[in-house]
């Protein structure tokens, strides 16, 4: 057969066979509505940024974001009430997104946290007005060189970066999908969707812009690095299982099905691929939760990012990332529990200890809180490792409790200011309790909650997590956790002692009077902290009911 004939026959063959229709994907729009609403609001925000006059943008963006988040939360509640959290839970969008108890619980938490965070984003009374116009925590013009002429002009022109609102909404959209992702590709896409806006947000601080930009670059570089690991891990797992869906991989792991893809015959069910792939995927997630030794970005980024962004990131990212980690370990890998548990034990122990120990010598409030968040990641990991239904519900509860404490604490940090912006050095906080008893008392409540003192949500959460871990056979982990808590209590209480039992400095910082936005954010933080501390039972039961993953 000549070359021409071959080509011809190929043509005719192609023509002879009727072209196959690619079936349109089946999408359950209603069940995905929380994510869709948030992303829709984000798109509207972009349009608003393009078409609305500058004067009304701030108000419009805030309203849009708050409305979108509230509507999404309402959708989550409606779905949960409709039974999607329990008996009707299933995997939507062609196996890409799970709609089940943990997903809805975490999405609800993320949305509430984001809603409160948006309030702190919109705060415009703390920074002294620039040329008579109120400004927020974000740079006048992000692209301008710090300290350069362009920046001065932008400030003089009263420019503000209202793009932060759509950016937050995009990040929230990614975070909503992240813990619900039911295949590895969706997981990766969601990760990038929420990471990229965060990288940008980190670099947008109005004050100390160099530090802010440095943190953004570091976060981006290291985030990209970890994404590479994650992606490589996904590839290896695909090689192992011949599929990227959680359920499919789980089946191969447990040996119930063998994929008959001849192209992958050489690699299917090769345990080396599985183990290396799992380790790499885990690493990608551990990076996001800030577990040791993938935590190094945390202090630098938390310190450099605008404080409202730090609060949002510390709270919401942790919720989303732990949600994804839970789903991965409980849905994909229960069959290889004996492989991942010892490794995760090690990670949890190192995380708790390093976070607590290094925090002891910190002198900056934001870095202190960063290390504290590392230690808390360790505590939550202890609950994750329990590998029991109680473990899931305790982690859910802990995440909800912890995120509001964190948000509130960072919101208080934005209030304590001196001429250079926020006064984050601890020495400046000395005697704060004498000058501003209320602010100091509120911060003390958050610190006590971090320390896990009874009658605060921190205690209820820590107790639930440690109890689950102990019942799950991880008693040594609990012992390390309690010891770390003891170390951690030292530096939390030290701040309280500093605030209430030291003489105020003559040139100490002032406490700015915030608008109702930040005030309400802090008030919500205190309220949730106390309610979850005083009467945790209802919420523990809620988390308990939401603790079953769909497969």
């Amino acid at each position, binding site marked *: 057969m000549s070359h021409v004939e071959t080509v011809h026959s190929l043509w005719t063959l192609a023509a002879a066979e009727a072209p196959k229709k690619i079936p349109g994907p089946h999408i359950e729009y209603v069940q995905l509505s929380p994510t869709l609403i948030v992303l829709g609001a984000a798109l509207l925000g972009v349009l608003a940024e393009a078409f609305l006059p500058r004067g009304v943008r701030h108000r419009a963006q805030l309203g849009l974001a708050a409305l979108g988040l509230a509507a999404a939360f309402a959708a989550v509640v409606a779905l949960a009430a409709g039974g999607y959290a329990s008996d009707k839970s299933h995997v939507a969008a062609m196996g890409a997104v799970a709609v089940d108890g943990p997903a809805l619980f975490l999405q609800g938490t993320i949305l509430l946290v984001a809603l409160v965070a948006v309030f702190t984003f919109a705060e415009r009374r703390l920074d002294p007005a620039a040329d008579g116009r109120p400004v927020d925590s974000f740079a006048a013009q992000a692209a301008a060189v710090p300290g350069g002429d362009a920046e001065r002009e932008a400030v003089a022109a009263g420019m503000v970066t209202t793009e932060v609102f759509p950016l937050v909404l995009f990040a929230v959209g990614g975070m909503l999908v992240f813990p619900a992702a039911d295949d590895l590709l969706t997981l990766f896409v969601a990760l990038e969707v929420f990471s990229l806006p965060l990288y940008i947000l980190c670099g947008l601080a109005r004050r100390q812009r160099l530090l802010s930009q440095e943190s953004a*670059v*570091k976060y981006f*570089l*290291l985030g990209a*690095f*970890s994404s590479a*690991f994650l992606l490589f891990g996904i590839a290896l797992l695909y090689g192992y299982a011949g599929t990227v869906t959680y359920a499919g991989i789980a089946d191969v792991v447990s040996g119930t099905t063998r994929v008959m893809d001849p192209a992958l015959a050489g690699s299917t069910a090769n*345990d*080396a691929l599985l*183990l*290396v792939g*799992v*380790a*790499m995927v*885990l*690493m990608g997630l551990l*990076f996001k939760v800030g577990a*040791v*030794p*993938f935590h*190094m*970005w945390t*202090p*630098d980024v938390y310190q450099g990012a605008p404080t409202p962004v730090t609060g949002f990131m510390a709270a919401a990212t942790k919720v989303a990332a732990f949600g994804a980690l839970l789903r991965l370990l409980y849905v994909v890998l229960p069959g290889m529990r*004996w*492989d*991942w548990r*010892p*490794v995760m034990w*090690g*990670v949890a122990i190192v995380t708790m200890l*390093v976070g607590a*120990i*290094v*925090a*002891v*010598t*910190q002198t900056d409030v934001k870095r202190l809180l960063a290390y504290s968040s590392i230690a808390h990641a360790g505590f939550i990991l202890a609950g994750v490792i329990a590998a029991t239904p109680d473990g899931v519900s305790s982690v859910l509860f802990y995440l909800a409790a912890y995120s509001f404490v964190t948000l509130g604490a960072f919101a208080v940090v934005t209030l304590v200011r001196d001429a250079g912006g926020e006064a984050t050095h601890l020495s400046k906080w000395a005697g704060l309790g004498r000058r501003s008893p209320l602010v100091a008392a509120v911060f003390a409540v958050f610190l006590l909650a971090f320390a896990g003192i009874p009658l605060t949500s921190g205690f209820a959460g820590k107790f639930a997590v440690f109890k689950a871990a102990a019942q799950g056979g991880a008693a040594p982990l609990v012992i390390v956790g309690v010891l770390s808590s003891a*170390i951690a209590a*030292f530096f939390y209480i030290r701040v309280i002692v500093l605030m209430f039992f030291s003489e105020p400095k003559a040139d100490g910082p002032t406490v700015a009077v915030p608008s109702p936005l930040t005030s309400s954010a802090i008030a919500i933080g205190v309220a949730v902290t106390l309610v979850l501390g005083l009467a945790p039972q209802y919420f523990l039961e809620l988390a308990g009911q939401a603790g079953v993953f769909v497969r």
Partner: protein
Amino acid sequence: MENLIGTLVLVPLLGAGVLLCGGRRLDRAGHWIGTFAAALSFVIGVVLFADMLGRSGEDRELAATVFSWVPVGGFRADVGFQLDQLSMTFVLLITGVGSLIHLYSVGYMAHDERRRRFFGYLNLFLAAMLLLVLADNYLLLYVGWEGVGLASYLLIGFWQHKPSAATAAKKAFLVNRVGDMGLSIAIMLMFTTFGTFAFGPVLENADKAGEGRLTAIGLLLLLAACGKSAQVPLQSWLGDAMEGPTPVSALIHAATMVTAGVYLITRSGAIFDGAPDAQTAVVTVGAVTLLFGAIVGCAKDDIKKALAGSTMSQIGYMVLAAGLGPIGYPFAIMHLVTHGFFKAGLFLGAGSVMHAMNDEVDMRRYGGLRRYMPITFVTFGLGYLAIIGFPGLSGFFSKDKIIEAAFAKGGTEGWILGGAALLGAAITAYYMTRVMLLTFFGEKRWQPAPSPEEPGAEPAAETRGEGRMPHPHESPKVMTIPMIVLAAGSVLAGGLFSLNDAFLTWLEPVTGHEEGHSPVTAVQVTTATLVVLFVGVALAWAQYGRRPVPVTAPPGSLPVRIARRDLLQDDINHIVLVRGGEHLTRSLVYVDHTLVDGVVNGTAAAVGGLSGRMRRLQNGFARSYAVSMFGGAAVLIAATLLMRAV
């Protein structure tokens, strides 16, 4: 009738509540309210007694559960009362003697500003003591036990402005804590052994528990009894407790509270019956204390302290009898009752003398008072004859029985115990005759009233004028009538109880009774008792009756000085417990400072140092961070693979 039992406790409790919470507006009538409450509970007691007599021996026990107190899982404690012959005896003694002493106090405390409070405490004591003897389980008994301890503490320290009274109260409280600890641990042991602490099930099942358990419980109960009843080795508080007003000494530290230990042992008879070692400990404690108290009583010049020594000694007799088991229980209680009469009478007499002598307590400054205070002399004298066991009076019947029972124990033990009891009887005769002679006979050795600097003075002395010679007079009727009634009891009770063995028959259904196999006959014992009685009286007469008594005590030989120092009880406690405790505390403080603080501070320093090193890893370079992540990932992968390999 069952419902009346609760009111026995409730009436004085209400009285105490009204008096203590009522405030000053009750100052004028407070003492009569208190006395009325006491008298009312006595009337209720008599009604219950009459009712009880109307039934036959085995059906006399009444029980009433008021409410479920602590229902926690398998743990169940009720507030329940049990009124049997034993409790009934105590109820009548407590409310009867208690009412008389309330009446007496109306006169005795007439000039005290805080009289209302005093009567409130007395009522509180009555309520607690009645609760103690009426409880149907050990836990509720413990409540009463602590309640009488509290009342005792409050009343010993009633004149709290005197440092000696405040210290004495504290001492009594602390020493009693030791005993209370024994009782609480005994109750816990009972619960673990029997699963309950109600009298019924515990005592019925006592024989099923191992002897080791029973011995442990018995010894702990003995410890409790030692604390409350001032038995060796926890006797040291009773002498100092005489700092309290004299009616308190009469009621609490002679007639009722201090006999609670005897009640406890008798009530727990079934436990001791199954634990011979514990019984041996009980009789040993009793025998030692009866001699100890008697010897101390010989050496004291303070009339109340001499009587306190006597109390200790007489309770020693009761404990000895209780330790003998069923052959002794009824006689322990019988002596307890007769002792309640004559010792309360003696204390009230002493109070009357002090009242007349400007609150002087030193007997060497009395003398010849019989002509000035005839009623006091006669009543005190009858009490004296009763306690030394003069034939026909109360003490003769009850003490004689105990001595007989001690011999009946049998063997060497019986001879030792009987001998000790006889010796005690001789010493009793000696020191009581001494008290009698020093106070009512001989020359007048009166001295001007103590000046206010001297700590022994009661505040009432000021109103009577110090620095003047006393001019003794008979006490008012409100004080003499109780003394007369008690004297009548001292004379008659023993005889009535022994008529046809009435008391024995009455108590037997509760305590049981056995006749011992005595190596000596009852006649022999009685004869021996009378001989030693005569010897004791004669000795005292030779020393204090024939010769004039010096106003200041002679220095005395070494044994006398030791006896004056209460046989060195406080010195021994100081050396063994106080010094030992101080050493222990110091060494613990040292350990705390060096070891505990060292570990704590060392840990803190170590964490701080580690923290300083580790934060250097956080050097700010993204490349270092990436290396850390890469290393971490490598370790993670290696570890995962390794886990599969092993």
